[in-house]
């Protein structure tokens, strides 16, 4: 009855309930030893033989596992593990909506679990070392598994329904867990639930980006303004890298480019050597920023991590080829918008123009060295026409506008003689863009 009368290949009912029972006692064992990672591994079915897995999934689908868990596991662990396994089993069986329903129960029991363990920790004697030697927040890996389960069930449920309701709801529920973690606790920060803050926020970021609800990411960042929470760098590497990756992307969209560069660079440097896909993901956002700040990535980088979209734009910028640049932007527009770097890539146009003018200057200088610092606007127009770009024939207004912007941004030192020349400085007409701070519009 506990296994819902489902037809199961191979094992008979008795041995199935034995399998589940055996699994649960293993879980209880690790709980007793306060080994959070092992509990999490078991829950996520890592290293669990397939027969046992099958039995658990069946028990999960029929929800019979809940009572079994309540009997075998002590205190708040019972309902927690029970609801977790139900949700995971439903998810496994592609029943997303039911997985999400069970996940909501899971969230409630997670809070209960954390409450119980937290009050025990707060009531304990902190002068004596903990028996068993494990820190008071030993169960954080389990919380992580729970939050992961919440997130994945929300995805599945919404994919079935075709909207984003469950994911929004999960955002709210996961934030409640976050609040649990930042409460006042007796344990020193590194041993307290505050060490759970980063991975929970990362899960929230993932949902936000998936459903394109980026506005709430701002107040999430304020969580770290709390001085009792350790700095990001003190958290486990993988969590810190993920956090900085997301924060960098958010700052990118907020047009805070220097902060974004810092975060993404840190993420790239500290990202695990073998995690190639993640490195590519970080670069996708880091490269545009570097380009904007005129820091060209070495060709070696593109050999290791190919990015055709950036390679062609870089070429266009370096050669001052406005047509190549415009074409590339049009070609990759969908990709750039999707990544949120569209505006950044648009901002590179001024460098293309600057390099184009520099070429005109050099060509002009090779013809007549005496008046090389007076660049006729007519020549700039010719250059644009050579690039097969449409230009106004009646006046130089558009060209003067672009030039005025370059002068204002300190990319060219000079002034405009209206409708006649761009007159550049005799000393350093084209300052190194690296040295000049980019003016924000």
């Amino acid at each position, binding site marked *: 009855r506990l296994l819902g009368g489902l037809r199961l290949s191979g094992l008979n009912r008795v041995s199935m309930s034995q399998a589940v029972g055996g699994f649960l006692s293993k879980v209880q064992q690790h709980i007793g030893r306060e080994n959070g990672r092992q509990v999490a591994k078991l829950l996520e079915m890592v290293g669990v033989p397939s027969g046992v897995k099958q039995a658990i999934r069946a028990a999960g689908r029929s929800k019979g596992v809940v009572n079994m868990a309540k009997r075998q596991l002590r205190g708040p662990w019972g309902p927690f593990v029970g609801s977790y396994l139900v949700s995971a089993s439903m998810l496994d069986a592609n029943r997303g909506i039911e997985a999400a329903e069970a996940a909501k129960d899971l969230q409630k029991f997670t809070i209960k679990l954390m409450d119980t363990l937290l009050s025990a920790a707060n009531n304990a004697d902190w002068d004596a070392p903990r028996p068993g030697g494990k820190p008071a927040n030993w169960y954080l890996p389990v919380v992580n598994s729970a939050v992961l389960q919440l997130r994945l069930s929300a995805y599945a449920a919404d994919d079935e329904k075709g909207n984003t309701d469950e994911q929004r709801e999960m955002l709210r529920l996961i934030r409640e867990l976050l609040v649990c973690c930042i409460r006042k606790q007796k344990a020193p920060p590194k041993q307290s639930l505050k060490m759970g803050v980063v991975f929970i926020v990362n899960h929230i970021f993932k949902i936000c980006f998936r459903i*394109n609800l980026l506005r709430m990411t701002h107040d999430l960042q304020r969580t770290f303004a709390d001085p009792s929470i350790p700095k990001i760098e003190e958290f486990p590497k993988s969590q810190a890298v993920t956090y900085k990756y997301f924060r960098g992307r958010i700052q990118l969209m907020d047009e805070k480019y220097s902060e974004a560069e810092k975060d993404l660079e840190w993420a790239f440097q500290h990202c695990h050597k073998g995690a190639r896909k993640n490195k590519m993901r970080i670069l996708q956002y880091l490269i545009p920023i570097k380009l904007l700040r005129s820091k060209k990535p070495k060709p070696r980088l593109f050999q290791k991590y190919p990015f055709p979209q950036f390679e062609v734009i870089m070429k266009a910028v370096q050669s001052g080829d406005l047509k190549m640049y415009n074409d590339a932007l049009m070609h990759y527009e969908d990709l750039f918008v999707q990544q949120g770097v569209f505006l950044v890539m648009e901002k590179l146009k001024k460098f293309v123009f600057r390099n184009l003018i520099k070429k005109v200057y050099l060509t002009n200088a090779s013809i007549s060295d005496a008046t090389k610092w007076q660049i006729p606007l007519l020549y700039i127009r010719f250059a644009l026409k050579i690039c097969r770009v449409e230009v106004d024939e009646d006046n130089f207004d558009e060209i003067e506008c672009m030039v005025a912007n370059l002068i204002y941004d300190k990319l060219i030192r000079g*002034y405009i003689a209206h409708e006649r020349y761009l007159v550049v400085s005799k000393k350093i007409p084209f300052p190194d863009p690296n040295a000049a701070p980019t003016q924000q*519009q």
Partner: protein
Amino acid sequence: HVSGMSSRGRGGRRGRGGRRWRSRNRHSSSKDKTWRRGATSRPSHGETRVDSKGRVAGEAGSASSQFVGTMQELEKSYFRLTRKPKPSEVRPLAVLQKTFELLRRKRAEGAGYEYLSDQYKSLRQDLMIQDIKSPFTVLVYETFARIAIEITDLSEFNQCQARLKELYAEGRDRREPEMVKNYHEFLSYRLLYLLVTSRSMEMMEFLRSLAPKDRKDKQVRFAMDVMIAVTQGHYHAFNRLYNGATPLVGSVLKIILPRVRYRTLAKGIKAFRPMRTTKIEMWMRILNFPKQDECAAYLAECGVSLSKDHKEVLLNQTKNVKRPKELAQANKHNGGGVVHGLF
């Protein structure tokens, strides 16, 4: 006499049943209750089944419990719902359609924004209460949104476009092209709204949410071109777009024009300074002033030196440039004024 307005003063309770709405009915609804015949001061039976968006909840999912109003008066002042409304307080669809026509006429006759805003709010409320999601609903929201844009009441516009988003989605689901025919027009307004209120994060979020083919629409493309021109400081492109914009788009662009203009002034001064004098015609073009005297007045207000006949702008004599009045007024739209309303 079509108007449902009873006397414009207080009182006006007639002997017959059915209530008349006073104009500017800001009194709380509890006071209204005491005027109703046989009304008690207790809230209506059972729990208040008006949800957070002002919709009257029927029995779960059943369309047969559709709320239908019976009020016949065309005009009704808006008041916030705190309890389930009675049918006599809500106008049925046929009446609402007449109300809409009335409001259109009144607008053409020059009715004030406060009156129109009030009436449209109650019109939208009645549609919401009766859960009417039809091309007519879309028409009502779009019409009022356009009025709000013209007056540059951005917060009202924002409320309307939020609801329009839902209605368009509904129209797409139900495959009713009538409901979504102005979809792209309002997408472009939304983008410009985000630009004008300096919400770069939401702007990127918004662009991301568009399907690629939406981005290729002419109106959306126009708004994107404006966005690029403003964020890159391409004042020439901005002026061109501004001068070629449709009247409604122009109303929104008028809000950022002062900002673009002031920055252009700064750039122009830097780029042309070594020239002793520059012609005012050039400044008229880059600052987008069709009339010379307006341009001269603006420059003077900003502390730029002009020749006596205002034909020459003397940059080398210009010391301190200060902000003009129009900039301060425009900046109050910057990043503010959003009220997430119901209707």
